[in-house]
């Protein structure tokens, strides 16, 4: 169960953005999607969320064709966490998170008492219960990202798609949010996040998809497939990959060191 992408191609009318892409996901995987700017990471997400129709190939969600899902049905399978969330109105954190349960409601229904307490539980799990009554405009970027994760969790979908979850966060908040995301994998969720930082893939992902020129340059465990030549080819700069031991734990890190030849 999960997402099954089969020979997916997509084009906006001109040259194809995604070409003959195939991969499938399993529960518990935390997958980092890497690739240079404009390579089609967002396009791939938009295909997986059913916003764009593949030009060729198909996407199966829990074994069923994506196009056969209703909006509501798909929302019960896949939740989406946008890169930024800029609320027009100052909903409280509690109200914002409660909106996640909508896919579980009939068209005329409002959230139940049970669902309201589920929201408080989820906020506690993420350690932001104290923010429940605060306005979503008046909290920090890191707190807002955790709020969006809470919203995706109450949506109760098993697959979480995150578009650069740390793009607007400072160093400390990035760490806190990524730690939490990595833990979602061990709780059985499938997490697919895009990132511009190979170090996040090394540190938090169980699997990496490296996208280049519309196809997969690498697919596998980060430490195995993100080699110096792969990273150099991916970003067009020479990259050194090293192991660093901190407090007896070994971390793999990548360091860019000089413009490459192919760009």
């Amino acid at each position, binding site marked *: 169960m999960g997402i099954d992408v089969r020979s997916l191609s997509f084009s906006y009318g001109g040259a194809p953005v995604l070409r003959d892409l195939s991969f499938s996901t399993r529960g518990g995987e935390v997958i980092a999607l890497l690739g240079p700017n404009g390579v089609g990471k967002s396009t791939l997400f*938009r295909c997986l*969320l*059913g*916003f764009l129709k593949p030009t060729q190939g198909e996407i199966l969600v829990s074994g069923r064709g994506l196009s056969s899902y*209703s*909006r*509501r*049905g*798909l*929302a*019960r399978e*896949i*939740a*989406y966490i*946008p890169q930024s*969330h800029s*609320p*027009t*109105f*100052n*909903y*409280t954190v509690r*109200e914002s998170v409660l*909106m*996640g349960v*909508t*896919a579980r*409601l009939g*068209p*005329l*229904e*409002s*959230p139940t008492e049970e669902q309201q307490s589920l929201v408080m539980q989820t906020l506690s799990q993420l350690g932001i219960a104290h923010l429940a*009554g*605060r*306005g979503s*405009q*008046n909290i920090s970027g890191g707190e807002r990202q955790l709020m969006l994760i809470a*919203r995706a969790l109450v*949506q109760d979908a098993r697959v979480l798609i995150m578009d650069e979850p740390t793009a607007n966060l400072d160093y400390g908040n990035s760490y806190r949010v990524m730690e939490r995301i990595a833990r979602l994998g061990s709780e059985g969720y499938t997490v697919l996040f895009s990132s511009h930082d190979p170090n996040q893939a090394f540190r938090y992902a169980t699997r990496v998809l490296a996208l280049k020129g519309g196809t997969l340059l690498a697919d596998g465990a980060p430490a195995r497939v993100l080699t110096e030549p792969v990273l150099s080819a991916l970003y067009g700069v020479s990259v050194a990959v090293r192991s660093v031991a901190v407090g007896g734990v070994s971390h793999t890190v990548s360091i860019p060191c000089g413009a490459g030849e192919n760009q």
Partner: protein
Amino acid sequence: MAFRSPSGGARRFAVLTAAFFVIFLGAFAAGRYAVRVDKTVCILLDGALRAVSGARWGLAAFWTDAEAAVVLNVRLPRILAAALIGAALSVAGVSYQGMFRNPMVSSDLLGASTGAGFGAALALFLSMSYLTVTFSAFFFGLAAVMLAYLISRRSRMDQTLSMVLAGMMISSLFTAGTSLIKLVADTENQLPAITYWLMGSLTSVRGRDVRFAALPILLGLVPLLLLRWRINLLTLSEAEARSMGVDTRRLRLIVIVCATLMTAASVAISGMIGWVGLVIPHFCRILFGCDYRRLLPSCALLGASFLILVDTIARTVTTAEIPLGILTSFVGAPVFLYLVLSGGEQNGD
């Protein structure tokens, strides 16, 4: 905004509901021909019982026929119209604000009011009957929005943006049409009638107007009340709302149809009454928060109360009545300015 316990919101809502009933009944007592409140209540009760069952239920008439006529034939339609229109414009406004993700939007964004104004001006110019004027206003209000919506559907831009642009264009077309009619209208009778109609007033409202407008207003109000939880999700980005299971295109269409029915029906019997659909939602957001579960009903109640109050002022303060549209602007604009200025501080924390 500070933390608000649910019970605090519930208490405020109870106060608002009570205030609505006080204002509703109090408005009957105001006017040149005074009728005591206890008489008013009994006349209304008697009227309602007779309308429902045809029997008098043993209510002894301790009032005069003149008093009954004033309450039932003059004040009741007018107060009901004010309540319906106030609620309709506020609910349509607050729904549009959510849908267009913009607190500065009001219910005539897609041309409902300017279309209705044109329809009324056209009918007055052609010296049609009063009923035809109302019907023509209603029809052109709906037609204007339908045009704007169909045009926006053909655009490849973001749906919200293209709707706003199409609405602006349609509005400006119908405004130009109205101006053209005013230009060629006979200046003795038609031009004053058109100008006065466009100012917005409930002076000429009778029972038949209320009966005409009540159905479309309720047809718009009830679905929005039922769907109010989902309107919350329209305030999010398109991608977020859809990924959370909302068919945004369909929900938007429902909101547009409902808001347009309410706005066009209101304008058709009252003319242009500005500011209500803008100020009331702001006020309610401050008092009740952003959640449409409470925001929408509170807008209906506060909008109804506000318009009854302003209309009562309009008909009692001076002998020559001030058109309601002018008064709502006089009251609405300063209140709005105050809200904008004090709201700025709130966002600063």
